[in-house]
């Protein structure tokens, strides 16, 4: 077993460090003075790095499978469904594990499936240890494979998309220099790929991290990479402001993260997830075993106020809470909640959840491959990954907040997406909404469902971003949907792959059979968990109703996007002539991702992917938590979720069809002309100046309230949160102005005052020196007398 752990860690370490090596080489090689800016060498090198990374992670996955002789796919009792190969994509990993299925099941002791260890020790204070270590389980491997695969596709797409940077003199149309002309600068092809490699390094590091401190390190590194990538067009003021905004909002999230870290560090004394095997053979419990031990319950004291940490090992290696109070290491329950919320605060900042989501739409300033990789598939998903990884530490109250935050985010994201006109903004808001979904999934106890949706969303969202990228490239950087229309004939492949993506996200499926798009399976899993959850705690009914509603809205705005851009008459004739299909580098990945988006969740709950994810779910999640006793929220167990599958699935499907049909009527066929609705709601239009007026013929309750709410949500978003942010900034600047005045005025003032006063005193003393000798002599007599009187008066008595 030990050797397997090492092999796995080395393989994943290679996959992790390769992009860093790529970054270093690209930065140096390309900054060499004579490097010609036309060569695509940088792109090919980056693709090699991340591709090889993907190969390593799939080998690691294969090794891991063998090591645990594929218990992962045999865990579920009723055998495994039809032998559909998980993914047709042609690399050998898929083929490999297909034929292994029929190996005989041997019943020896359960193989070790979780491997943890240390790379090297950062610092050691007394018995507090901070180190870089790795934690490999099925979730890590799944994330590795997913991230490297999608990153490879996006890198290939980017070589095509960024081709225009391959020129020595790149004219940036959006930037106007003071003399009115456009800004000229040399192409920056290589710089883009170096940043992308650095990003992959940081993202993989985050996934591989073995302790929460290491997660925080790569958390910020990923934040910096998003800053660099958003602000790629450094000349555009809007780009650099968006980059600043993204970084500072992430930092606000990190502020919460640090507070969480502080509490954990002070009360638990360690950061590492797994148990640490000290050199002297002594085993130190990791966070999870301290908090949850082996059975998944918190060891609370009788009054339920403080939690006793399990720091002692009983006979067969299970961590128990020590009996004598003197040995006990305790943490108050409220502090544990605050720690959970703190870490979740970090996730909110990174995954653009409810209070801090304003930066993600602005982040669309970055080139589209960036939006595809960073702001849809990987980085924003890091928040959900961390919530998943840190799941055992979240107490039910925290899970409830996560659920509500997810729910609100999903709804707000979806409603704003309705009114968005920029194609990338629509996708950005839909990402926010889907992330809300994942958080909701985790919040309501569906650990597997949340992460399942994470993986599927990564596939189809990156697919859709890349399609929008190829559309934008096709229409010569035109992003506004009103100017497009009827592109189906001109860009067939992009249109069809986009349709696959749209259907996946809408969660369409052929009722009755189990053939469905990946979106359906993962969204169905979340809705099922939500339904089971609302059954157990009826007062939280909203946690099922709102997601259902959002599912409908999601399919509506996604199909609106598709019909609006690809069907109907081309609205801008001049633009229409120049539209052309993207070259193969761009359409190839689209096809690959389309296949992935369609089939990656084949088999739904008992498909390969879901089993893969849920294999290493935290202990005690499967059979749910009965909150009644401790009058907290109870979480649905696996069986409860299973029953509510069918009802939730059909409800979701219905909502999706309704949404699709409405958007078809409004945009596809054009039965109702959107223009006259705009006239009726002219005032609203003025109000939504930067949002294209929403035409809605049907006065159905569903549409009007959605519109009002959208307006309200957009308003909140624009006038409330941005305002809050701007007021903070203005307040900060005001305080700093006061601070500077105080600093120069008061403190410097005092010092100068002292200096000047002594100086003036000095000057005044000069005129005592009159120069008249007679006054001097009088002074002798006078001072003798005064001295005598003084001495006489102050003579120390007795």
């Amino acid at each position, binding site marked *: 077993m030990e050797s397997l752990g090492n092999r796995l860690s080395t393989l994943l370490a290679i996959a992790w460090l390769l992009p860093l090596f790529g970054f270093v080489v690209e930065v140096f090689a390309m900054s060499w003075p004579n490097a010609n800016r036309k060569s695509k060498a940088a792109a090919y090198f980056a693709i090699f790095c991340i591709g090889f990374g993907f190969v390593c992670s799939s080998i690691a996955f294969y090794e891991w499978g063998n090591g645990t002789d594929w218990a992962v796919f045999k865990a579920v009792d009723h055998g495994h469904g039809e032998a559909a190969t998980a993914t047709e994509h042609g690399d050998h990993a898929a083929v490999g594990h297909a034929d292994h299925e029929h190996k005989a099941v041997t019943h020896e002791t359960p193989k070790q499936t979780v491997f943890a260890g240390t790379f090297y020790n950062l610092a050691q204070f007394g018995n507090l240890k901070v180190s870089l270590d790795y934690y490999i389980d099925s979730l890590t491997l799944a994330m590795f494979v997913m991230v490297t695969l999608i990153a490879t596709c996006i890198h290939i797409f980017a070589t095509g998309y960024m081709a225009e940077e391959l020129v020595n003199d790149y004219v940036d149309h959006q930037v106007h220099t003071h003399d009115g002309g456009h800004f000229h600068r040399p192409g920056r092809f290589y710089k883009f790929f170096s940043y992308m490699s650095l990003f992959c390094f940081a993202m993989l590091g985050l996934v591989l991290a073995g302790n929460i401190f290491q997660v925080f390190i790569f958390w910020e590194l990923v934040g910096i990479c998003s800053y660099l990538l958003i602000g790629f067009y450094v000349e555009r003021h809007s780009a650099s402001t968006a980059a600043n905004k993204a970084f500072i909002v992430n930092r606000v999230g990190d502020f919460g993260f640090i507070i969480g870290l502080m509490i954990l560090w002070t009360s638990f004394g360690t950061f590492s997830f797994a148990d640490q095997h000290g050199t002297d053979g002594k085993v130190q419990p990791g966070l999870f075993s301290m908090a949850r031990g082996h059975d998944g319950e918190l060891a609370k004291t009788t009054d339920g106020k403080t939690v006793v940490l399990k720091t002692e090992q009983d006979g067969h290696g299970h961590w128990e809470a020590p009996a004598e109070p003197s040995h006990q290491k305790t943490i108050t329950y409220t502090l544990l909640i605050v720690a959970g919320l703190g870490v979740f605060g970090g996730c909110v900042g990174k995954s653009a959840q409810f209070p801090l989501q304003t930066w993600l739409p602005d982040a669309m300033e970055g080139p589209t491959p960036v939006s595809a990789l960073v702001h849809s598939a990987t980085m924003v998903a890091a928040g959900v990954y961390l919530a998943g990884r840190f799941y055992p530490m979240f107490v039910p109250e925290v899970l409830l907040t996560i659920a509500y935050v997810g729910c609100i985010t999903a709804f707000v994201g979806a409603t704003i997406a309705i009114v968005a006109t920029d194609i990338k903004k629509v996708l950005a808001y839909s990402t926010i909404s889907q992330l809300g979904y994942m958080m909701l999934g985790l919040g309501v106890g569906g650990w597997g469902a949340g992460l399942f949706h994470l993986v599927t969303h990564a596939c189809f969202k990156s697919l859709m971003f890349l399609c929008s990228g190829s559309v934008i490239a096709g229409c010569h950087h035109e992003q506004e949907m009103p100017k497009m229309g009827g592109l189906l004939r001109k860009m067939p492949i992009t249109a069809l792959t986009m349709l696959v993506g749209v259907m996946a996200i809408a969660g369409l499926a052929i009722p009755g059979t189990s053939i469905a798009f990946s979106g359906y399976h993962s969204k169905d899993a979340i809705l099922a968990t939500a339904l089971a959850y609302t059954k157990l705690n009826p007062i939280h009914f909203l946690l099922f109703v709102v997601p259902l509603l959002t599912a409908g809205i999601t399919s509506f705005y996604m199909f609106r996007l598709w019909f609006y851009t690809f069907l109907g008459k081309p609205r801008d004739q001049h633009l229409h002539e120049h539209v052309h299909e993207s070259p193969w580098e761009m359409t190839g990945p689209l096809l690959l991702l389309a296949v992935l988006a369609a089939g990656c969740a084949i088999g739904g709950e008992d498909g390969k992917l879901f089993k893969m994810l849920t294999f290493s779910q935290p202990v005690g999640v499967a059979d749910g938590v009965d909150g009644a006793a401790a009058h907290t929220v109870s979480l649905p167990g696996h069986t409860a979720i299973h029953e509510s599958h069918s009802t939730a699935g059909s409800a979701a499907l219905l909502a999706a069809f309704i949404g699709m049909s409405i958007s078809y009527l409004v945009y596809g066929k054009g039965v109702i002309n959107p223009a006259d609705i705009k006239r009726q709601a002219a005032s609203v239009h003025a109000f939504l100046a930067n949002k294209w007026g929403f035409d809605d013929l049907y006065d159905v309750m569903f549409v009007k309230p959605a519109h009002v709410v959208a307006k309200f949500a957009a308003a909140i978003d624009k006038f409330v949160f941005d305002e809050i942010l701007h007021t903070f900034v203005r307040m900060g600047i005001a305080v700093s102005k006061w601070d500077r005045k105080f600093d120069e005025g008061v403190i410097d003032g005092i010092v100068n005052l002292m200096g000047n006063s002594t100086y003036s005193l000095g000057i005044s003393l*000069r005129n005592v020196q009159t120069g008249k000798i007679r006054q001097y002599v009088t002074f*002798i007599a006078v001072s*003798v007398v*005064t001295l005598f009187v003084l001495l006489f008066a*102050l*003579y*120390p008595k007795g």
Partner: protein
Amino acid sequence: MNEIGLLVQRLLDETTKTSVGLFVPELVLSGTIVAMLLCRILPLLWRVPAQWIALLGAFTAFAWTLCQFDQLVGGTMQPTPIFTGLLMFDQFATFFRMFLCLFLILTITLTVLSGIPDREDGPDFYTLLIGATLGMMIMSSANHLLMVFLGVEMASVPSYAMVGFLKGRKKSSEAALKYVVYGAGAAGVMLYGISLLAGLTGTGSLPEIGHRLSMIVSQGAGISDPIVRTIVLASLMVLVGLAFKLSVFPFHFWCPDVFEGAAAEVAGFLSVASKAGAFALLVRFGLAFSGGSAAVSEIAFALGIGIGVLAAATATFGNLSAYGQTNIKRMLAYSTIAHAGYMLMAVSALMVMKYSKHGGAESTAATLSCIEGLIYYLFVYLFMNLGAFAIVALVRNQIFSEEIEDYNGLATQCPLLCFGMALCIFSLIGLPPMGGFFAKLVIFASVFKATSVHWAMWFVLGAGAINTVFGLFYYIRILKAMYLKPRPDGARKVSYDLMPVGLFVLMICLPTLGLGILPARFTETFNNVASVLLTGR
């Protein structure tokens, strides 16, 4: 009839056998004065310039006092009062006489270099110079009230004349007049005080005063007792005379005007030599009260506190009023006032510690360090101040001005002189590597010890600390002018070659650094001097 004969006989052999032998350095100096006056008259000696005679005389006097000092320290000679108790011959006095002779040599070489007294009135100048030094040497070894007055007068009168030496200038004549009038006034008051004191105690010699006073002062008498009042008044008046010589706060008015009027060399001489003599005398006078009863000690204790307050006032006044000065000599005058204040703090600490009620061994060790601090400060002060005045004199010879503005950008032209001035200035401020810092540290340490005796000394220590910071402002203005400001192109060129001038400046300024880095050797000798003075009594 024969008692008178006996008396005269005893007097004769007492003076011839012992006193005259010990009085040789002073006699040598008197001899040089006579020689110089002779060379004015005898055509044979006309060609020999007076300064070489003066220098020769000063060297022999210095050598003599040096070997006297070694013998005293070595123990071969015992400290004894000479001339039937008029003067006291001990380490303390001999050290000061050696100090004054050394200073005399340096001043004479300075005047040779800066050429103040031209050939034909050279002898007169050097006569006055040596005469004043003689007066100060007597002051430092005075053991009798008569000698106190005689020493002060002998030191002051020649310096009145020296101040007015540049006959042609209006300023120097005005300065001389002011100095004469003020000096005479102060001397008069002092004499009256001395007469009262002599009358009260019925004797002139300082050691007996303490005993005599304790006889006439009844036990536990406060200020209300008339005898105590007259003693306090009398000693106050005597202190006035000394305060005038030290330019302590209420009696310092003459100092800025005289220093500005007089030539820089004379001002240098006055600032250092007269202070040394006066401080020696003040210490002896302060110790005169010792040995008395508790009441007398109480008087002395009160005087000590009074002096401490005066010292703080002097230091603060000196530093503050130096701010706005534009003439560098006047600024250095105020700086000498300030340094007099610092040194006076040591004397006040001495008196407070000596006469504090709960005396004991610990306080004698403390008084030891007060005197050691005072002597060390004077020793460093000699080099600091003389260096500063010498450079002012040398620069004046080239640019004919003593305004600080005219010093702008001097560093670019004569780096050596400016380096010397920088050393002196930093030592005057009291920055650590320089001697000035260690001197101030020792004095502050003794004042710090005195704070345990009486709360007022905290005020004195505080004033000392603040003044170190105040002092920074005006001292730095000189360096700022020299180093930081560019040399205006119209200004005169200042250039000195290394050989006579540069070497001299280095010889004076480097000891300020040396004393800062290797104070060990000097502290031992000073410690020995102080212990003999205190325990010898």
